[in-house]
């Protein structure tokens, strides 16, 4: 298939069929997950026993729906809290780091840049255990030394946030740097020239220019945090975020309440993702 060049009809059809098949392959698992959220069966499998909304609104075990499932709701809340902090931290550091790498020259810049990229090629589980090991030893040492307790250094939400931040910050930095690089410095100079102070120029011109990237990075960070599993698994304490809760339930063998949560997740993240994409377009 060559763009703009006439092709035999059969080849064109074959090609289209392949592309169509591909998108069916992409959609199938998600569609199936969603459909089985409405099956009147305790088990997400065939046969189809009829339509039900119990997995959303049921209030009696085992027909307990998402909206009445304390565990799921709690996990959802935890995920949201984690996502909020991860995204806030990643975006803040992303902005400062983007300015650093785009605007400044200093010794070891290249080395630091490569180091900053590394989290992208460290398997999540290893990131998780390495932070677990570090903080455990640190906590043990601090506790031995002071006799106090350092709960923040033990598996729990703080570590989950830190662990996710460790690699999501790289994404945020890349997204924001990409936009900052495209920023025409003469806009800032124009602002100075028109009487703005250096900070005023950044505030009135540069940051508004970066806004779509910042919001986009925040949304992407939230999505990544929400769906992170590998790193979180190693750092989670008593408060399980949604993916961990769902994984535990899957291992335990759960009712299609999982399908219902998944459906909600798919809808919510598509909306968020759509917004992030629209923002990227809007530049």
């Amino acid at each position, binding site marked *: 298939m060559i763009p703009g060049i006439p092709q035999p009809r059969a080849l064109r059809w074959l090609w289209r069929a392949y592309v169509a098949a591909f998108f069916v392959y992409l959609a199938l698992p998600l569609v199936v997950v969603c459909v089985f959220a409405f099956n009147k069966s305790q088990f997400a499998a065939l046969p189809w026993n009829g339509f039900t909304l119990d997995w959303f609104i049921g209030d009696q075990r085992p027909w307990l729906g998402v909206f009445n499932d304390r565990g799921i709701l709690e996990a959802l809340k935890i995920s949201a809290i984690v996502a909020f902090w991860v995204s806030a931290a990643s975006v803040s550091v992303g902005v400062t780091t983007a300015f650093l790498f785009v605007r400044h020259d200093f010794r070891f810049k290249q080395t630091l840049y490569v180091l900053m990229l590394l989290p992208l090629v460290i398997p999540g589980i290893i990131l998780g255990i390495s932070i677990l090991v570090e903080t455990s030893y640190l906590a043990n040492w601090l506790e031995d030394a002071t006799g106090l307790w350092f709960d923040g250094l033990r598996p729990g939400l703080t570590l989950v946030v830190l662990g996710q931040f460790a690699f999501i910050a790289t994404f945020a930095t890349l997204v924001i740097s990409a936009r900052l690089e495209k920023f*025409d410095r*003469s*806009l800032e*100079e*124009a*602002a*100075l*020239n*028109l*009487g*703005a*102070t250096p900070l*005023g120029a950044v505030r*009135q*011109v540069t940051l*508004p*220019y970066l*806004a779509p990237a910042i919001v986009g990075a925040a949304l992407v960070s939230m999505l990544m945090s929400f769906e992170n599993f590998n790193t979180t698994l190693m750092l989670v304490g008593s408060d399980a975020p949604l993916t961990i809760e769902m994984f535990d339930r899957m291992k335990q063998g759960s009712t299609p309440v999982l399908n219902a949560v998944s459906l909600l997740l798919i809808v919510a993240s598509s909306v968020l993702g759509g917004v992030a994409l629209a923002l990227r377009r809007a530049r």
Partner: protein
Amino acid sequence: MTDTPDLEAVRLTRRFQDFTAVDEVSFAAPPGSFFSILGPSGCGKTTLLRMIAGFLEPSSGALRIKGRDMVGVPPNRRPVAMVFQHLALFPMMDVGRNVGFGLRQRRVPSAEIERRVADALERVGLPGFERRRVDQLSGGQKQRVAIARAMVIEPALLLLDEPLGALDLKLREHMKVELKRLQEAFGATFVYITHDQSEALVMSDQVAVMNRGRFEQIGPPQELYYNPRTAFVAGFVGDANRLRGKVLRREGDAVEVADPAGQPLRAAAASAGLAPGDEAELFVRPEAIRVSRQAEDVAGMDNVFACEVRDILFNGANSRINARVAGSAREFDVAAPQTGEFADLRRGERIHIGWNAAAARAFAAEPAEPAEPGKAQAEEGAA
């Protein structure tokens, strides 16, 4: 208005490491004038302008605006406004907020901002454009908004860094005239930089020709065109045929230069210091050469050649004849007379060309340089 120039530079110099981008440049732009700095790419124009705007510190020399010394004054405190090459309109603000930006920085009350913005937009011919988004404007409109934004703060000086560079040909032609009219309307001093000689010639009261960090000549456009003082100016401003040869004789300002193709070439105006035996470069403008089918028609002129037509470059009023001197490799570009008298000229035909010594100028030849633009540059490539 006093006689203090709006802008005055004295031996202004800027070095980057061991490279001197601007080299002891001195000039003064009188109030209300359109002052252009014309030079090839990389000659230091932007560096100079950025020093005036305060984005770069001079390495040495003095810079005064309205008589006030500018050294150490940050850009946001200087009474200059700038129109950037790519205009640098703020894309996140509408036209009104763009134009009002400078006033907001000065904490002008918002009612007054509104009034002055409306007024500025009116003056650039865009009344009521306040709520337009920047990306909804055409190239020419953007240009005018940039000027309004700069002029609304009533700067002593407006600096323009090749603002027409990004426009397409037709619009550029139009904006040349427009810019000059705006300058007159605002009555402000414009300092305009460009590498396009036709822009500088058409718009300016004064043009400074810059080359390798230095000013080669400052003067009104006609003076540069008709009385270039250096070989560089002669070659860079306007088209010219360029001839090299050894100086044979010198009499006052007039010289005779040896030409391999036959009779010596005569020029009435030679630069000082050009002595017999020196390598000289002669410049003759295509429109200064007379062309005829009959040898007699040009016989009385100081320099005459019998040629063969190599190409006819028909281009309406700007048609050229490319003629090669018979029995030589020397070529001339000759303006085809606008009378249309040579419309039937054919390639290979024999013609006679001639020009008077008064139409030619001679300079000491510079060694051919990569930084040199014009004809020579376009010949690159034939390794």
